């Protein structure tokens, strides 16, 4: 019988297989950042071990880094200690590090692909659950805990039990204005935050094949929000074109050999998935979350649901709690929800294409009174490219704040946070209670919806913007 994409990549990395034991998998790329690595290095030091493969290891700083005044000392002493600890560990063990201020610094899941380190058919791990992002290249990529970080540092392998596989087939055309973010939010709402648990998801179908690499990364990124540790998309010409010429992409004969191998990385026609979900792209519309988990989402045209309408008791309770926390009333149209803050950024939607999409909508428009908009590129490189294209000016002229690269308000470990009771439309991936700051309320949205929301001050899609009302003609 044929094999799925996930099974092929898995099989190619088995170092050791023994009855009744997890497979020992070789890890091709290990990404590190300041939050989940200190205790791992500590463990190495305590046991007198070193990093086995420095040439397969790379570190950057993202979660704690400020997005303003990056040349000044970091004000928060705890953040400073964590960043300094990574710098110390990288120097002591010889790990390549891109610190704050470096041109290759940025959110770890933006940095890996942009350097061309994330490649089809590789195994990629990082002490961060959104490592699933890298699956967009047909890599087997999953988040790991700090003990596993230490394990990979010491052995370049991980003992793992192979998850089951689930096909998520999306056929048809995404309607105008509907993005990868809307698609993944709709998928999560459909299968639930636990629906992908125990599975590697493979997104496939004609709608997926048409997506850019950036859009594919947005989708794979949020696999974890559906409960899956990994999401994958088979590599194709779009993938190869994205990689060609990147700093760490293979060259010459190696490129040819690589592409030949990459082309084999497709689920065989006679392979069987353990579960299948089919989605019709044409039925989708802009999607936003109303609650406090990413599965609590609805089309923007809908209204806040009535908890009483849920048959399942625990879902009903969860909805009640969510409405209370979010300060929302059942039946209230989602479009009527006013926000204080709009955040464009994160490893979900902080890539150049996302910034372009938001800028296109902000051009010659203004951020609504009383709304602050933060635009945070996913990496320093993305920031530079945006400046090159003049996107920073578009945002600044609209009244938005243009910031330096990092995780920023995605989780508020740096000073970029919501105040208690404040409400955001955010292009990030988690709307958990307090995720963006204690008491903060988060609505997950696409970059396009974020921009339209910034202009109108309430949840909105670009279709809600009438040019005559909101756009100042050039030169006026």
């Amino acid at each position, binding site marked *: 019988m044929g094999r799925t994409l996930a099974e092929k990549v898995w099989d190619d990395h088995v*170092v050791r297989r023994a009855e009744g034991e997890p497979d020992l998998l*070789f890890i091709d790329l290990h990404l590190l950042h300041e939050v989940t690595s200190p205790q791992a290095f*500590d463990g190495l030091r305590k046991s007198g071990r070193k990093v086995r493969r420095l040439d397969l290891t790379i570190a950057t700083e993202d979660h704690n880094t400020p997005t303003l005044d990056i040349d000044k000392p970091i004000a928060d002493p*705890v953040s400073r*200690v964590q960043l300094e600890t990574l710098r110390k560990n990288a120097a002591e063990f010889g790990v390549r590090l891109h610190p704050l201020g470096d041109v290759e610094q940025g959110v770890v899941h933006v940095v890996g692909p942009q350097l061309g380190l994330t490649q089809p058919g590789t195994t990629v791990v990082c002490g961060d659950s959104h490592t699933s992002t890298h699956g967009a290249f047909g890599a087997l990529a999953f988040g790991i*805990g700090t*003990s596993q970080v230490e394990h990979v540092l010491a*052995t370049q392998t991980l003992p793992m039990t192979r998850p089951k596989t689930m096909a998520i087939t999306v056929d048809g055309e995404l309607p105008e204005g509907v993005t990868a973010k809307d698609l993944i939010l709709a998928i999560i709402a459909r299968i639930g935050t636990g629906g992908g648990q125990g599975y590697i998801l493979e997104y496939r179908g004609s709608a997926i094949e048409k997506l850019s690499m950036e859009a594919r990364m947005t989708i794979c990124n949020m696999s974890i929000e559906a409960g899956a540790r990994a999401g994958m998309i088979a590599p194709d010409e779009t993938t190869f074109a994205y990689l060609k010429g990147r700093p760490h992409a293979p060259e010459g004969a190696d490129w040819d050999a690589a592409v030949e191998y990459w082309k084999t990385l497709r689920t065989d026609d006679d392979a069987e998935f353990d579960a299948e979900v089919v989605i019709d792209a044409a039925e989708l519309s802009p999607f936003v979350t109303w609650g406090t*988990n990413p599965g609590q989402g609805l089309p923007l045209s809908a209204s806040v649901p009535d908890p009483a309408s849920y048959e399942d008791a625990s879902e009903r309770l969860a909805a009640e709690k969510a409405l209370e926390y979010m300060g929302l009333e059942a039946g209230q149209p989602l479009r009527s929800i006013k926000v204080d803050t709009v955040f464009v950024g994160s490893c979900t939607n902080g890539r150049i294409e996302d910034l372009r999409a938001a800028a296109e909508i902000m051009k010659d428009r203004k951020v609504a009174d009383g709304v602050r908009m933060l635009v945070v590129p996913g990496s320093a490189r993305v920031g530079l490219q945006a400046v090159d294209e003049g996107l920073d000016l578009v945002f600044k002229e609209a009244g938005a704040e243009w910031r330096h690269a990092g995780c920023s308000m995605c989780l508020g470990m740096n000073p970029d946070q919501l105040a208690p009771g404040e409400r955001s439309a955010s292009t990030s991936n988690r709307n958990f209670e307090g995720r963006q700051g204690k008491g903060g309320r988060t609505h997950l949205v696409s970059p396009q919806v974020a921009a339209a929301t910034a202009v109108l001050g309430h949840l909105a899609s670009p279709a809600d913007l009438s040019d005559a009302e909101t756009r100042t003609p050039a030169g006026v």
Partner: protein
Amino acid sequence: MEAFTTHTGRAVPLRRSNVDTDQIIPAHWLKKVTRDGFEDGLFEAWRKDETFILNQPERKGATVLVAGPDFGTGSSREHAVWALQNYGFKTVISSRFADIFRGNSLKNGLLTVVLEQKIVDALWELTEKDPQAEITVDLVEREVRAEGITASFELDENSRWRLLNGLDDISITLRNEADIAAYEAKRPSFKPQTLKV
């Protein structure tokens, strides 16, 4: 890692589902660079509420957490496991755990036990009625016992063997160093390298 054979202790019945790792240990605690001292961050937001179960004097010293379904969803932070352990929990019972959390817990010697929801319900009822009631989690017999309740649970043989013996992963893997070296020797040259520019 400390070995786990059998443990008996009082319980904290936590009647909440979908407890994510942000609730178990909020993000600002992740700035610490050590593995201990996380006990005060455990369920930090909820503990500000006097009526929260963990704040009840009769729950002091409890070592068994009985939680609702989908415990440990969200981020991969291992700090969630350390926070539970630092606070004094030895084992967590739920009808369903998030994958990464479960993996992290077993690697750190925190035994996560999956039981049917109706047994979890029974444990909740028992320990709510009688805060002194003890629960025994027996990894040798793969059994949970409490007054009027006996339930067996599953755990894969490998995780069980390691917990029973208190073995950590790295030392086990390094016994297969020759296999790793053999694999490395045959990796294709087109594979990415971080140090080549």
